[in-house]
């Protein structure tokens, strides 16, 4: 099997997500490339959670409507997804809950209770799957051993494996690679750029950044703080950045709304800061655990007054690593806020991580001042970039939220006001050049017909484009917009369709400034595009 998809589901609390992870890790050991999409409602017990695991030889990162293996921890899962079966795989269901159905009935509750604990029924189900698909018992046990309560879990896995039947053979096609989520990848990117302080208030889908970095904190040189609210988050982070720490904050749209004053403060006070905005379906509380790409306009415009910013839009884990790393380096280089606008289906999805991207992880030293006795925090020079000094040395460092003179003292003088506004805007052409220099527009395939896409939509768009013979153009920076590279990518294109997950077609409206857009393919039910959905729109 070169490319198949597994759905594993159950009620919240039944452990379908960890079972999905277990299966992903086992298949990873066989060299298969993994993409896991997590679907869960905003609740702790009950409801219906499932993971879709796309398993392929060539690293396909989108989900399909059809499922090859359906693994049901409960009856509900079976009923909801039975109709999606491709016929290439099989169903394995909890026979303790479902009397009789098509597929393999696995008494997972009985096994788990007999030799382990009832909650280990998910391990039992995984073991059934492993046997059925042709995974060796040894490889399965290697992974089960790393679970919490390994002894009992191993017993459960062994027993279930014995009882199950082998249905397929699975070829070992290569070496395992790290499995990381988008949020983990972006955190690592930030660490490579010297991240020292992370500030956040929990909000799905950004919360796992907080968890991941807090987990590293116990042994490593990164400080993680959870302030009282997002207003506190951004202002505290700016204080830390002023005092010399590479700082980052993370949130979703609602928290970012509260941070808007701080974005503006970073703008005028020229305090570097990286802001991770992981989108979910809005407006307001919206559909909190489901995806959307509807904060693009907001990320580009949040904050009152005129000031510059970077806005990057990664479309998978490697890009999340690279663009967050870049965002931090650029924010400290230009002393402007840098926003990484990611979305739930990257943040919380799991990827077979291509480690070659690590080469792009860099640390750029910011331009430091002499920091001697006299220091103008806002020195006006050719490029509008004043050297940075931090308090604690000889230099007096004066940051200001009011308009100010070069020394940082408040001013209302009309000439000074103009001078400082112009000073900050001198960075604009430099930032634009910088963005054009980098590969901020990716092109996959070729043709007269093209899809333009961004963020997580690129994953399905790329696969659909490949099948339909369309060129796929992905935009990874919206501020500054890589106009030249985008126009180059459009060369020879006669039909242009924009693919994104929002109701208005926010990126499409921006793209219209540069070219004609023939059609928009929009999805806004909170679920990711299925490959077939885009494909149907192209034929």
């Amino acid at each position: 099997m070169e490319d198949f998809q597994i759905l594993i589901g159950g009620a919240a609390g039944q452990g379908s997500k960890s079972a999905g992870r277990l299966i992903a890790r086992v298949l990873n050991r066989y060299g298969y490339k993994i993409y896991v999409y997590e679907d869960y409602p905003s609740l702790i017990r009950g409801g219906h959670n499932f993971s879709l695991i796309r398993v392929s030889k060539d690293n396909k990162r989108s989900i399909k409507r059809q499922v090859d293996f359906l693994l049901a921890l409960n009856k509900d899962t079976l009923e909801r997804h039975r109709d999606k079966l491709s016929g290439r795989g099989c169903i394995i269901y909890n026979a303790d809950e479902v009397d009789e159905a098509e597929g393999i009935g696995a008494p997972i509750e009985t096994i788990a209770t007999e030799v382990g604990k009832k909650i280990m029924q998910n391990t039992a189900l995984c073991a059934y799957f492993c046997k059925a698909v042709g995974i060796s018992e040894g490889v399965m046990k290697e992974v089960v051993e790393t679970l919490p309560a390994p002894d009992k879990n191993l017993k459960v896995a062994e027993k279930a494996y014995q009882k199950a039947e082998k249905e397929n053979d699975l070829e070992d096609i290569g070496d395992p690679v790290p499995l990381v989520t988008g949020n983990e990848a972006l955190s690592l990117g930030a660490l490579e750029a010297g991240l020292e302080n992370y500030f956040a208030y929990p909000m799905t889908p950004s919360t796992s950044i907080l968890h991941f970095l807090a987990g590293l904190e116990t042994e490593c040189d990164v400080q993680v703080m959870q302030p009282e609210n997002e207003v506190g988050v951004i202002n505290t982070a700016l204080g830390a950045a002023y005092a010399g720490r590479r700082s980052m904050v993370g949130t979703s749209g609602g928290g970012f709304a509260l941070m808007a004053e701080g974005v503006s403060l970073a703008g005028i006070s020229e305090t570097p800061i990286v802001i991770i905005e992981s989108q979910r379906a809005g407006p307001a509380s919206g559909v909190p655990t489901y995806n959307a790409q509807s904060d693009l306009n907001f990320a580009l415009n949040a904050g009152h007054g005129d000031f510059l910013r970077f806005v990057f839009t990664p479309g998978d884990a490697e890009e999340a690593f690279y663009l967050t790393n870049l965002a931090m380096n650029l924010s400290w280089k230009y002393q402007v806020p840098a926003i990484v606008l990611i979305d739930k289906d990257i943040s919380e999805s799991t990827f077979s991580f291509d480690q070659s991207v690590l080469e792009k992880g860099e640390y750029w030293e910011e331009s430091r001042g002499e920091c001697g006795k006299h220091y103008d925090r806002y020195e006006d020079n050719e490029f509008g970039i004043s050297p940075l000094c931090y308090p604690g040395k000889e230099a007096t460092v004066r940051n200001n939220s009011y308009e100010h003179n070069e020394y940082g003292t408040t001013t209302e003088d009309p000439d000074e006001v103009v001078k400082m506004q112009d000073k900050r805007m001198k960075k604009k052409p430099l930032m634009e050049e910088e963005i054009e220099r980098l590969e901020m527009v990716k092109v996959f395939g070729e043709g007269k017909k093209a899809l333009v896409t961004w963020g997580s939509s690129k994953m399905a768009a790329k696969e659909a484009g490949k099948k339909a013979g369309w060129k796929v153009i992905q935009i990874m920076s919206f501020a500054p917009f890589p106009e030249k590279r985008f126009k180059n990518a459009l060369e020879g294109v006669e039909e242009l369709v924009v693919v994104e997950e929002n109701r208005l077609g926010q990126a499409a409206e921006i793209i219209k400034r540069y070219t004609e857009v023939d059609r928009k393919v929009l999805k806004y039910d909170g679920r990711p595009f299925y490959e077939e959905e885009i494909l149907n729109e192209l034929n």
Partner: protein
Amino acid sequence: MSDINMETENTWCPGCGNFAIEAVTKKGIKKIGRNKTAITAGIGCHAKIIDYVNVNSFYGLHGRPVSLAVGIKLANPELSVLAFSGDGDSLNEGISHLIHAAKRNSDITVVIHQNRNFALTVKQFTASSPKGFVSNSSPEGNVEEPLNTLEVANSAGATFISRSFSGDIEHLQETMEKAVEHKGFSLIEVLQSCPAWYDTNSYYRENSYKMEKVPKNPDKKIREWNYDGEGKIPLGVFKKQEKPTYEEKMARKGKKVSVEEVLKSKI
């Protein structure tokens, strides 16, 4: 400019309590050292102190000087960090930051310029204005009860709580020094007259008294004056407690993260 003074024009009203705060601040910073101090301020008349004192500073947004100060102290615990704030600033707009900074015992000093109105926006009632206070937003008199600043700090667990009066500069200097010296979160509420909108000089002079030592029962002492005409006004230190600071508890471990190692653990 290596001197503590700035050449900026001072725009506070004659008789404003802010002058006394500026004077003692400068004196105090000279003692600590200019390059060992950083100050923050919100927005309001009080905040203009930033432009009058030549020292490391971050002139922030309305209500956020405490957040900035917490961030600065976390990033560089060597610095002595003071947040200058108004009653509007930290009892209205930014009260959550004040409460949480006290709760986590962040080692900063918060100076509340307590003039009991929004002065810079030309006289509206704040959280600490007395009931019946006639202002532009309460022409018939404030219908809300005033908030006891010190009680807020106390219930949040502040380890140092004090009050002074800008009309007694010696007491102010002494109290401010104690606040800055304190290891952990310290609050100093400075009662001040607002000559333009709320002249309280003689009221504070007649109704306040200095406590001789830190009271055994700060809760009771803190409630002695109700901010609303009842009770005498105690000045001095109400509470002083030794506890580990937030920054001590959050100290970095000093080991660089190896991304490769983290990734290895993800296989």
